[in-house]
């Protein structure tokens, strides 16, 4: 039996990874839920968020709160780009086979990946943890960095805010209606086009935010887009495509399997995660909390 402080440490690090992943994957899930578009470029938007936040912190220097300004600025920038992508590219493909939307987002993966390489080069970039969250504290014998604890709190907060927005506001009702029946909503006079742009921007915002927040923990490198998109897909698929709380659940399971899989099968933890995805899909094809597609 490993000692309990080690287990707590492992569980918390799994939870931190899970919350990072949830912030990114929730954007993917929301876009799929409403637009029915599986956005391959979501990971690229995440990467762009990371680079933009590095750039903004670089410009701002040591000014107080520069980290938070950079994070929000980067997320907003990525959201803007997302809006442009939806409005000027994706919009013209809605009537056609889903495959073409997939192809478009894959083309964007290629373009954004190279754009990042051209702009920022290929060397690793790092961002300091924000002042005030740079320390760490002890919990049941395990050392927990304060920043990780902040992320563990932030994840559920974002989940609850998004859920309240979706379930309690007028726009949220429209969004849910659009997810059910786009034509009917349009026939009732709603501006579905604008709603779609808004949703895609929201998804991009979450991707950019995730990318910006992850910078103090992981180094910023080209290739982080491909890495995260596979993980985000797994999370969304395990939880159920388009199901918001499913994504939350999927992220937590993913984080714990990754954290404890290392103990059982060192080196094979990626294998464990993919196997988990396959098993979930075999038992519940629509994911843990997903509804089968009509």
């Amino acid at each position, binding site marked *: 039996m490993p000692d309990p402080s080690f287990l707590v440490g492992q569980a918390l690090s799994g939870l931190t990874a899970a919350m990072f992943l949830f912030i990114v994957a929730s954007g993917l899930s929301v876009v799929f839920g409403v637009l029915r578009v599986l956005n391959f470029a979501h990971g690229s938007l995440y990467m762009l968020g990371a680079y933009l936040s590095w750039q903004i912190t670089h410009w701002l220097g040591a000014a107080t709160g520069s980290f938070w300004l950079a994070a929000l600025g980067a997320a907003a920038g990525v959201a803007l780009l997302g809006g442009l992508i939806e409005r000027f590219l994706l919009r013209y493909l809605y009537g056609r086979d889903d495959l073409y939307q997939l192809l478009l987002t894959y*083309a964007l993966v290629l373009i954004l990946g190279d*754009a990042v390489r*051209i702009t920022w080069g290929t060397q690793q970039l790092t961002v300091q943890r924000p002042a005030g969250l740079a320390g760490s504290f002890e919990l049941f014998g395990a050392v927990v960095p304060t920043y990780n604890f902040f992320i563990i709190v932030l994840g559920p907060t974002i989940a609850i805010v998004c859920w309240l927005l979706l379930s309690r506001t007028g726009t949220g009702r429209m969004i849910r209606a659009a997810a059910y029946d786009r034509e009917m909503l349009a026939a009732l006079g709603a501006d579905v086009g604008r709603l779609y742009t808004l949703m895609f921007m929201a998804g991009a915002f979450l991707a950019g935010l995730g990318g910006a927040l992850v910078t103090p923990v992981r180094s910023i490198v080209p290739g982080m887009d491909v890495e995260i998109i596979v993980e985000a897909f797994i999370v969304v698929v395990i939880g159920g495509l388009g199901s918001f709380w499913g994504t939350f659940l999927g992220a937590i399971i993913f984080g714990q399997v990754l954290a404890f899989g290392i103990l059982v099968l060192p080196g094979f933890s990626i294998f464990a995660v993919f196997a988990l995805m396959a098993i979930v899909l075999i038992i519940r094809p629509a994911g843990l909390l997903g509804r089968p597609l009509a």
Partner: protein
Amino acid sequence: MSAINTTRTWSRRIPWALVIWLVVLSVPWMGSRFYTFLATEIVILALFAVSLNLLLGYTGLVSFGHAAYFGIGAYTCAILMKTHGVPFPIAFAAAGAMAAAFAVVFGFFCVRSTRIYFAMLTLAFAQIVWAVCFKWNSVTGGEQGLSNVPYPDLGWMASLPLLGDMRTADHYFVLVMVLAGICFLVLRRVVASPFGRMLTAIRENPERAEFVGLNVRGYQLAAFAIAGTFAGFAGALFGIFNRGVFPDFAYWSKSAEVLIMTILGGMGSFWGPAVGAAALALLSHQITTVTQYWPLVLGVVLIVLLFAFPGGIAGALGSVRTRLRRHRRA
């Protein structure tokens, strides 16, 4: 009117596939090492893409993990030939058999889900294959892959007429042409057979197909297995051509690449994906000589094609042909 008809039947009578096969076969006689290299790559990738199209275009199943069977075939053939010294014909057959076996097992689970979930499940299985190739150091060479995969013993080809003073790579190209040619022939027969028609019926309306008594899942599984087998053959050929096999062969980006070839070429026709494979390989080699930012250019090209040619390259050529014909009739 009658004149047009005669030209049409006349052009119909030419076995175009055979003509193109012969033209491609003559590439080594152009004497350029690079052209042979390029032609070998294109033919193998074309086989890979055409095998995917059996699922995508004919059965209407979007597989996101077709690279799994490509990778399994490549690794099986390479491991048998390099580690165990098995002769090529046996290794090649084993590659197809292994890919088929995995396709049956994975496919059994995949065909039970539909649309996007089918795609995701195929992706999950492919990533498992990739993870195993990536980590199983003692057998697959892990992250480093297996390099120096030997060429098959093709010395006997030198005694054939016309093939005497050729390099090994040229001999290998001839072998690829023969094997891929047979594969294309078989796939073409499959597509044109009653079985192939059933697949198309399933693509058009699975509920109705089931209603008239077709075992939809059975047919889908059979298509999945056949597609996987031929992807395995393509992988086996590619591993030798590439002189090495790497985990990337089974990675999702490889699956995406072959999907792009297929969609780009046009999934509405048998040869469309082969055209797509050729276009992508040629573009890639042309552009990488000019700029290192090949993905950027490819992305832009993809977007342009996406909006300019909805039916893929083959679809665009087809519509040009119809328009010409109408023009002549008028």
